[in-house]
C-alpha cells in the first residue's frame, strides 16, 4: 500500500475528540477508559503526507479539518458475509410447506 499521499488525494484522517478524563460523566467504565475518536474522509490539502503524519483535508461539505493520516484512497470492505447454514435451509423448508398445501 502507498505510504505517501499527495495534494488532492482522497484520504482518511483520525483525530481525538475527547481524551480519557474529558468524557461525559455517567458513561459505562469500559467506554470512559477509552478516548472518543473521529474518522473523517476528504481530499488532502497538504502537499505531501506520510501515513501517521498530521494532515489537513477538505471534506465533502468543504470543511477544512486536520488530523493524523491513517488511510490513502480509503474504500469500503463490508460484504454479504459467509454462508449461514441455519439461514440457508429456511427458504427450501418454507417452500416445501407451501407445495404440500397445493398437493392437498
Amino acid at each position, binding site marked *: 500500500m502507498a505510504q505517501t499521499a499527495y495534494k488532492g488525494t482522497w484520504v482518511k484522517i483520525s483525530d481525538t475528540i475527547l481524551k480519557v478524563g474529558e468524557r461525559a460523566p455517567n458513561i459505562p467504565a469500559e467506554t470512559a477508559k477509552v478516548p472518543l475518536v473521529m474518522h473523517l474522509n476528504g481530499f488532502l490539502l497538504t502537499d505531501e503526507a506520510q501515513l501517521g503524519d498530521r494532515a489537513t483535508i477538505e471534506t465533502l461539505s468543504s470543511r477544512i479539518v486536520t488530523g493524523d493520516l491513517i488511510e490513502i484512497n480509503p474504500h469500503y470492505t463490508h460484504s454479504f*458475509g459467509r454462508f*449461514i447454514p441455519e439461514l440457508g435451509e429456511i427458504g427450501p423448508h418454507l417452500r416445501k410447506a407451501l407445495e404440500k398445501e397445493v398437493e392437498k
Partner: protein
Amino acid sequence: MTAYQSVMARKNEIMKKAVGIDYDRFELEGCAFDYERMMREVGYSLDEIKGIQQRTRVGRTPLIELRNINRLIKQISPAGKGGRLFLKDEAANPSGSFKDRRASVSVYQAAKLGYKGVIAATSGNYGAAVASQAAKYGLKCIIVQETFDSRFVGQPEIVEKARACEAFGAEVVQLSVGPELFYYFLVLLEETNYFNASLYTPFGIAGIETLGSEIGEQMKDLTGEFPDYVVVTHAGGGNLTGTARGLKRVGAERTKFIAASVDLRALHMASDVDFNRKSFTTGHTGFGIPFATFPDRSDVPRNAARPLRYMDDYLMITQGEVFYTTEMLAQLEGLQRGPAGNTSLCAAVALAREVPEGTTLVVQETEYTGAGKCPTAQLTFAKSNGIEVRHGRREDSVPGKNILIPRNPEELGYERVDMDALRASYIKQVIKQYQKTRFSETEIAFLQEDCRIDRQTLEHLTEKV
C-alpha cells in the same frame, strides 16, 4: 469549565438557531406544552407535504398483500384464526426507507429558510435520506454517526450507511462509541451554522403522516376498509407517531397501532463492549423503551414523536426471529429487504396466527438491503464477535450472547411489553425531570394525553411510582 461542559451549557441556544423554532411559544406550564398547536403551527398540512414529497419522488409506495405468507399463516394457525398481512414497500423510496419522508420536509424547510447546509446525527437510514434530499436541493450535508468501537471495528450496517451517505455527496463524521456524539454534533452546528435536520422536529414527523394516509387510502382501495392493525417497527417513536397521525387524518379511528422492537434490553447502549454485540442498530428496545418513556430526551427541546399517545400494544421479538422472517419474505414473496425494517413483519406473522380469520394487518414498512445490511453479513459479524449462532427457541435467547434461529414458522412468537409499566416509567421520568409529585390541572390534562389514559389511571400510576 471543560470544552465539553461549556458547549453542553450552550445547548439550547445552539439548537434554537439550528432548527429555526422557538419552542418556548408552545410551553404551557411545568411539564405541559401544547403539542397539537406545535404540530399545527410548525408542521405542514397533509396536502403541502404531499406536494413537497412529490417533487423529490418521495412516498406513494406500493402496498401489497403477502399472499404466500398468508397461505403459510393459515397453515400454522388454529381453525378460525389467521389474519391477512399487507406490506407497505417503503424500500421503494429514493434512498431506500421511509426516512425519506422525514428528510424531505426537513431539508425543504432548511432550503426555504436559507440555510447553506444540513446536519443530522444518525447511524441509521436517516443519514442516507438526508444526504439524498440535500443532493436534490443542492445543500451541503454532514452526517454524524456512531460507527465503531475502540478497536475501530465498525458495525457493518452502519458502515454501509456511511457508504450510502458518501455516495449522495455527504460528509460523514464517524465517531467511536459514546453519548458525547451529541457534544460533537453541537460543535459542528456552531462551526457551520447548518440546519439541524433532527429526526424529532414537527417537520420530520409531519413528513411521516403521508405514510399513514397512504396506508388508509390503499387499504380502502384493496379491501374496502381501513386496516384492523398496523404493525410498526419502533425505535425513536417517529415512525409510529407519524403513521398513526396520518391514518387518523384520513379517518381511520378504529385501527390499532402495534409497536414492534427487537429485544435488546440486556445490552447497554453507551457501552464500548456491547456496541458490537448487537446485530440490530435500530428497531430495538435500546431506543424503543427510553424514547417511549421519555420522548424529550431527544436533540430538540420538545420531541414531536410521542409514541405513547398512539401505541395500543408493544411486542418484542428476538434477533433470530427477524432474520428468519427476512428469509421468509425473500423466498416466499420475492422481496429481498433489510432485516431491521422486517422487525414489524416478524411480529405481524406471530400476531396474525392469533387473530380471527379475515383480520387485516398492515406491515407498515420495508427498508433496502445490501452488503453489510443483510442476514448473512450481520450473522457473520455476530460470530466474529463471539456471539453463538445456532438453531433454538426464543425462550433461550440471550441478546449479546447468542442469536437463535427458529426451525419453523410455528416457533415465531413475541413477548408483550406491559403498557402500564411503560406509562409508569414515563410518569417517573416526569417526576424526576420536574422535581415534583403534585401537578396542576393543565399538567394533569397534558399527562393524560401524552400517556393516553384517563384521570383515574393516571392517579393510580402516579401513586404507584
